[in-house]
């Protein structure tokens, strides 16, 4: 009797492929070996064998990858990166290459990847470790060569964006065997200065573009550890856009170039000028609105007073009423007219108005000697000394009548 569980070839092959695809190593693997039987098909795809003394692995470079990779010849020693998976139709496993380089440079990259993995495992690259860069720094440290293009780029950028910042250069060689200890010492000196003399807000660590070997000092463990040990946050700007170094991973912030690092470290003064203007305008608009509201409050009180005062006076003293109502009527009519004109102006031009313009049109702010502003007739009594503020100054006044 046949077993109940019979699989097709496709099912088993799909299962095998799933094992490859989910394997962490096979999905992301670096290999070194010798190229053998290299051919490029008319489709543009490349096929070859990668081998060493003991084994052979089939390898494929798809057309899109082949267009941007340096293609090897049979017999070349190469370092390749890619994933290993199953080609079902042929029943074969093979390497799908996405990176390939000659073996010399390859050794550097293997070194790079090993150091990167080791430092990453230590947590040195953790995002949680990274510190924020102050928005408007007062003082920046710069670690680079005193004679390089990187320094010129940085200083030009800082002078253009934010010349308020004070720059402290700690010069160091940035390539060769002296570079890693030099960079570490420069970072240490700036940190010492920050603690002992003047605090630094951030340090820019930079170098202009160059070959892989030129930039190698920035892939040094000593440099990475000096960055991590720096109490002042570090911004890197090393090489060109596409260069990523260990120093970049260890830094608090990575910029693609020295110029980029200077830009990330500082605000642009044109934006700041606009921000200052905005804050000033906010204050003006607020105070204009405040004064307009205060005016309509006093106008409303004046209305009520004007309607009610004559009848009160009649009951007391007819003669005084005649006199007073005539005077009050004249004064109030004049005042109301100018008040309405003023308020109308305020409403029309609220945001554009200088809040003190109302004073220049004859208004006054009346306050008691303790500074409290008079908003109501109930606040004063006959004989009170008052301070009257007008457009071009202030003077004292005394309340002659309170008429309450």
């Amino acid at each position, binding site marked *: 009797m046949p077993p109940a569980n019979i699989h097709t070839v496709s099912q088993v092959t799909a299962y095998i492929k799933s094992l490859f695809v989910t394997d962490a190593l096979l999905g992301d693997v670096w290999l070194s070996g010798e190229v053998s039987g290299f051919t490029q098909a008319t489709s543009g795809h490349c096929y070859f064998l990668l081998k060493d003394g003991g084994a052979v692995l089939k390898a494929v470079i798809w057309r899109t990858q082949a267009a941007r990779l340096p293609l090897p010849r049979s017999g070349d020693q190469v370092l390749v990166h890619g994933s290993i998976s199953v080609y079902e139709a042929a029943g074969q496993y093979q390497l799908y290459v996405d990176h390939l380089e000659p073996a010399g440079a390859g050794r550097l990259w293997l070194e790079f990847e090993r150091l990167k993995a080791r430092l990453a495992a230590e947590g040195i690259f953790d995002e949680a470790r990274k510190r924020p860069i102050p928005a408007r720094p*007062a003082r920046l440290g710069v670690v680079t060569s005193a004679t390089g293009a990187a320094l010129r780029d940085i200083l030009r950028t800082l002078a253009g964006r934010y010349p308020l910042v004070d*720059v402290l250069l*700690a010069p160091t060689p940035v390539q060769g065997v002296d570079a890693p200890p030099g960079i570490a010492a420069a970072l240490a*000196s700036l940190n*010492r200065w920050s603690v002992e003399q003047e605090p630094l807000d951030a340090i820019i660590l930079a170098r202009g573009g160059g070959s892989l070997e030129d930039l190698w000092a920035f892939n040094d463990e000593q440099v990475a550890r000096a960055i991590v040990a720096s109490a002042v946050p570090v911004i890197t700007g090393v090489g060109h856009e596409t260069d990523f170094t260990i120093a970049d991973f260890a830094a608090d912030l990575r910029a693609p170039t020295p110029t980029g690092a200077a830009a990330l470290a500082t605000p642009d003064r044109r934006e700041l000028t606009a921000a200052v203007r905005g804050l000033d305008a906010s*204050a003006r608009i607020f*105070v204009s609105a405040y004064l307009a509201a205060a005016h309509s409050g006093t106008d409303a009180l004046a209305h009520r007073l004007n309607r009610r005062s004559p009848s009160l006076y009649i009951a007391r003293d007819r003669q005084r009423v005649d006199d007073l109502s005539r005077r009050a009527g004249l004064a109030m009519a004049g005042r109301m007219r100018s008040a309405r004109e003023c308020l109308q102006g305020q409403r029309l031009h609220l945001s554009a108005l200088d809040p003190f313009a109302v004073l220049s049109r004859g208004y006054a702010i009346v306050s008691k000697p303790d500074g409290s502003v008079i908003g109501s007739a109930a606040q004063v009594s006959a004989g009170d000394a008052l301070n009257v503020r007008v457009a071009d100054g202030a003077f004292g006044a005394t309340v002659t009548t309170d008429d309450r």
Partner: protein
Amino acid sequence: MPELSFEDLYRELEETVRKLESGDLPLAEALALFEGGTRLAEQCNALLDGAELRVRQLTARPDGSLRAETFQGGQSG
């Protein structure tokens, strides 16, 4: 009066506007704040317009201490 940094002035200006907009202030106090804020904005702009980049170089003395001197190099080219 000690010279205030741009950062100090800018923060004070932000704080002044925040107070003006959030507080239920008496008129006299609002006017005083406003005058102060306008002065701060002028000072901020003057600093931004008048600043020139100062660059110093850190060097180690023989006794191991550090000193900062005006940076001379790198200006050519």
